[in-house]
């Protein structure tokens, strides 16, 4: 009896401790979004990593769509419901999630979140004629040869080339080091286009190193290589999680590099516990700036922060835009909860090519027949812990 009592007490104390710690952060977890779906709602499917290493990106996408849906549903008129499935960023799980969603009667797909998984789902969606508008899968392999797959984010090659161009034209560095993630489609394809452009415009790359996971990596060898090669700027075509580690380790070793990142670096300043002084003077390309003061951005950011307890990154913003694009399509084309996915797909394809959208992540966005978006990648410099325009 005494033992049982002790055990229960231990359990209660441990749980109490967790509960105490979590009061502030608990809200960041993704909530089940389809709690109270209105009747006759159009079913929107999202697939993305809600758990595992890439959970932050999939959750951001699901949350961004949910906020857009809440706003739209509150207006009355057309009603929407989000069905969100977890794929952990894995192509096989993503295809399973796709099958589950189609069985549940999803009419259009906004996602998947990550490129590798999206390519697998896109192949299925292309066969079955389901329209796919991905907020964030930026690799060209996602929509290559598929007429019904469109992107809201700009493509990787586009970003790599713009990065090289920006570094050259602003004179940010003369000897460039690149640290990229060779296990990731996103990073590899930005890297390749960056290298091609750098060669073309005569930008000298002196150190080229890789790593292979987003985890708690040790970057001392890569940073040392860059330092020995005399690099003055390190180009980081990677997500922001490893950027945190790279900046901290570079600072501890006292290298004093200048950093240049791409849209995956967005979110860096919002990392809890990150010393933003380390990012001071770093440059990045991003379509979304959470500190912008226009009504659309500030409204979205404050709703998001109130609901999920964190500042939205560009994944959430792209997802929010994706939902509004589909909403516009529903209004123009008269979709209802009865319209079949195939009918939606065939109507969406010509519509997308004639549509112009202005939202959180860009003005006057238009799409090519390949499904790629044209929008401008703006360069920002990090100043006093916030994005500031360059120049």
């Amino acid at each position, binding site marked *: 009896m005494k033992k049982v009592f002790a055990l229960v007490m231990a359990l209660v104390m441990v749980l109490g401790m967790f509960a105490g*710690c979590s009061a502030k952060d608990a809200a960041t*977890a993704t909530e089940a979004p389809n709690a109270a779906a209105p009747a006759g709602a159009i079913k929107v499917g999202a697939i993305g990593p809600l758990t595992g290493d890439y959970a*932050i990106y999939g959750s951001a996408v699901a949350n961004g769509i949910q906020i857009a849906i809440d706003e739209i549903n509150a207006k009355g008129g057309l009603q929407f419901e989000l069905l969100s499935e977890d794929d952990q960023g894995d192509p096989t799980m993503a295809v399973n999630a796709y099958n589950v969603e189609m069985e549940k009667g999803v009419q259009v797909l906004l996602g998947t979140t990550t490129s590798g998984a999206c390519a697998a789902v896109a192949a299925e969606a292309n066969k079955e004629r389901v329209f796919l508008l991905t907020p964030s899968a930026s690799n060209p392999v996602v929509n290559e040869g598929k007429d019904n797959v469109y992107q809201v984010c700009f493509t990787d090659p586009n970003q790599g080339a713009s990065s090289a161009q920006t570094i050259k034209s602003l004179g940010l560095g003369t000897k460039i080091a690149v640290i990229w993630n060779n296990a990731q489609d996103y990073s590899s394809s930005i890297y390749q286009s960056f290298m091609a452009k750098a060669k073309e415009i005569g930008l000298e790359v002196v150190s080229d190193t890789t790593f292979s996971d987003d*985890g*708690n990596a040790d970057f001392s060898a890569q940073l040392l290589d860059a330092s020995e090669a005399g690099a003055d700027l390190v180009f980081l075509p990677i997500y922001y999680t490893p950027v945190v580690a790279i900046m901290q380790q570079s600072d501890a070793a006292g290298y004093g590099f200048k950093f240049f990142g791409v849209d995956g670096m967005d979110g860096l300043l919002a990392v809890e*516990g990150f010393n933003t002084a380390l990012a001071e003077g770093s440059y990045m390309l991003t379509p979304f700036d959470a500190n912008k003061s226009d009504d659309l951005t500030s409204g979205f950011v404050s709703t998001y922060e109130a609901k999920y307890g964190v500042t939205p990154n560009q994944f959430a913003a792209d997802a929010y835009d994706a939902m509004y694009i589909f909403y516009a399509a529903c209004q123009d084309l008269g979709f209802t909860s009865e319209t079949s996915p195939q009918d939606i797909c065939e109507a969406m394809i010509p519509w997308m090519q004639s549509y112009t959208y202005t939202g959180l992540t860009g003005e006057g966005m238009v799409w090519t027949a390949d499904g790629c978006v044209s929008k401008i990648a703006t360069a920002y410099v990090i100043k006093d812990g916030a994005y500031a325009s360059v120049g």
Partner: protein
Amino acid sequence: MTMFLSNLISGLSLGSVYAIIALGYTMVYGIAKMLNFAHGDIIMVGAYICFTCLYSLGLPPAAGILASVVVCTLLGILIERLAYKPLRQATSLAVLITAIGVSYFLQNLAQMIWGANPKSFQTVIPAGNLSLLGGELKISYVSMVTIAASVVVMVALSLFVGRTKMGRAMRCVSEDKGAAQLMGVNVNLTISVTFAIGSALAAIAGVLMCSAYPTLKPTTGAMPGIKAFTAAVFGGIGSIPGAMLGGILLGVIEILGRAYVSTELGDAFVFAVLILVLLIKPTGLLGKKIHEKV
């Protein structure tokens, strides 16, 4: 030359982290004869507790470390009671699969509590570095503390197992559980203490690891956990000095491999070592071959 030394020190520092984690693996394996694959995730919990104390509650680093050691110790005992003790008589495969289950449970629990967003761990050790050879060679304080801590932990653990009554009980249980019980050793208590110590080590490893490599997320412990397991096997699983040696060698191999052969293959080197050891010397560097008496 200084580049080699820099890399060597990075390797020693990374290796020391692996060593402390591997000590926990090896203790539990040596005494309870089970592979606790949830060990890596206890590291992650330790780091989160310390992060919460420092960042959200604003406590001093010492309190953060103490809190994470206490919580992880309790968590280790609790996991052992709830998940492993009922399986004491079951096949080792059942225990192994349970351990993997506990690992996923902890990861998802952490995601529920702290969210999927990565945190940047605030180091508990002053940032900065010691310049040697006229500024050519820089050794960060974090590296020095990590290396020193792992040596202290190993010595303390060796003394505990070799010199105390509880340590003797552990060695008895390790050799023959049934006979130890007949001789009046409290086997359950001994195994609980083993888990408690292993988990406390995991907490220390978590704090040190995240001080050196500051990104903290629910899957933070998974990869280092597996590498430390490799280190424990490399050094001879069950052997305390073996875990230490294996951890340090593995860290050095990983960093030197990355620096001089290919950055892409850093992890591949680590696991290639595991395969080689299993082929050439299955008992590990310092492992003893045990002859079954018939």
